[in-house]
């Protein structure tokens, strides 16, 4: 169950070279939303758009292909996409909403659909929730310190950040590459990530991430009935190139291993909150 419920898992990448040019991996999220927008499956999507500061994401409602393209690439910092989930059905007037998010944001979305305390008329307007794999996230200041202090690289000059193969990678516009051991990144992790028990966005309609597939490709889990329907249509429309997951390296085993590692480690931390923080007291556990 570390990978959640899913109907199929495949290796895939977008067939659109323009999307792939600046995509983090296989361009799955951008391509899915672009396709869904074209087909009227969604009216718009909440994505992590650009902001005034480099690599600081800002939640944005994208209703055009251009806006989707502008939000390509991973920013390893917090983008509170759920903050727009009600507004998108109000002043934006959307009836069919797309949303991309980390596993915790998929959890927030599903809780919001089942327990809509302050989210009137939101639940039935969610048309496509795309989840991205997430091991942990960083506050923006943490990214500045990693890139500018540990990496000795100006953030303005960075073209891409990546976490993979046990390292934190910094690529600059002019072709230089800096890598940091993940060990130095740990203290900058967002503390709230340490109670997270989901790696591959178990509650998304479709979830995707880089782990398990070669560079330029993505692992894709098709999960819900809604996701299955949209994925089948997108494949039929030629939006994606696919390979069976068991034909690629390192494959599903690595995904399973990393998911298990994350959940085991965080489960342990959750248990320690009940016993090791205080005498006769416990820190709060949200999972009832």
């Amino acid at each position: 169950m570390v990978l959640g419920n899913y109907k199929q898992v495949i290796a895939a990448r977008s067939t659109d070279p323009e999307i792939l040019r600046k995509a983090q991996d296989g361009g799955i999220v951008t391509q899915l939303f672009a396709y869904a927008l074209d087909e009227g499956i969604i009216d718009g999507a909440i994505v992590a758009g650009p902001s005034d500061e480099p690599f600081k994401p800002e939640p944005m409602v994208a209703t055009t292909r251009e806006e989707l393209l502008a939000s390509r690439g991973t920013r390893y910092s917090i983008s509170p996409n759920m903050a727009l989930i009600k507004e998108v059905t109000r002043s934006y007037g959307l009836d069919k909403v797309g949303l991309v998010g980390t596993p915790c944001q998929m959890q927030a979305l599903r809780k919001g659909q089942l327990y809509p305390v302050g989210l009137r008329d939101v639940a039935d307007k969610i048309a496509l929730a795309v989840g991205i794999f997430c091991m942990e996230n960083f506050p923006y200041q943490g990214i500045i310190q990693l890139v500018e202090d540990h990496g000795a690289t100006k953030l303005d000059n960075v073209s891409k950040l990546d976490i993979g193969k046990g390292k934190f990678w910094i690529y600059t516009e002019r072709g230089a590459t800096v890598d940091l051991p993940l060990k130095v990144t740990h203290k900058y992790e967002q503390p709230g990530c340490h109670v997270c028990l989901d790696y591959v966005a178990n509650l998304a309609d479709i979830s995707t991430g880089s782990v398990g597939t070669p560079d330029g490709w993505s692992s894709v889990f098709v999960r819900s009935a809604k996701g299955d329907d949209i994925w089948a249509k997108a494949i039929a429309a030629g939006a994606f190139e696919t390979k069976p997951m068991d034909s690629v390296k390192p494959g599903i085993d690595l995904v399973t291993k990393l998911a298990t590692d994350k959940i085991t480690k965080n489960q342990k931390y959750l248990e320690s909150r009940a016993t090791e923080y205080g005498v006769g007291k416990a820190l709060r556990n949200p999972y009832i």
Partner: protein
Amino acid sequence: MGILESLKTLLFGKRDVSGEKQDEKPGSAKAEKPADVIIEEKASIIKEPKEEKPVADKITVGHVHMSGCTGCLVSFADTYEGLLTILDKYADLVYCLTLADVRHIPEMDVALVEGSVCINDHLSVEEIIETRKNAKIVVALGGCACYGNITRFCRGGQMNQPQHEGFLPIGDLIDVDVYIPGCAPTPQQIRNVCVMAYLLLKGNDEQKALAGAYLTPFMNLAKAGTEACGCDIMTQVINQGLCMGCGSCAAACPVRAISMEYGKPQIERDLCIKCGACYAQCPRSFFSFDVVNQYEGIMDAIDAAMQP
């Protein structure tokens, strides 16, 4: 999948419900019930049979209006035709001063109580006590009943009852079983609680387990206390090392008192009206994998249950 199947079993009978949705109407399973025979109150004038008793397996629900604004009831009505479905199949509205001419609080299975209690108004105090005595389940409907909400700011001194200055959430005067926070509470949330309350009271053990699992967080909120504020996001989530910056609190806030600064909630406490929505909506206040992992099936089942 146990609780999900039991939900389906209760709503649709023992038939296989994996087939077409058109065939899943709960009405078809219950077509013989006397409730489906609608009889006018004035039947005697036009020589039709006397009104029969309401169906035995509906639950009885009342709406009790304390110091509230009726917005919670409007929200209930904003379930639109779903409200009619609820009243047709699952619940009889036995008391509601806004909608019906029953003057005194009768016995009921579920009391939806809106508004806080003015302790300087003895009639209000009597009514909330009577409500507790007469109701099996007391639901605090909306921010005022749960947490005081805007009436937390009352301090008397206004015409023509300047002494009406003390207002308390109902949980400070009686035991409350379930909270539905929010100002206003959402129609979808009220609908979900109605369906689940029906299962809790009329279901078998398994069905009660499902409803219990769904309602547990709202029962826990009722046990946790009668104070709410945007501060809860700080004291119960950020201070506890649980916030991961999703932004749900900012979306839930009805007065835009919460913005996200560098991925964390920034709370304008002078804008906050103390409704409790932000904390209840936060996925790190309560989160049940048992319930939420089955979101697809539960939502489909509730949708199906709401078909007329």
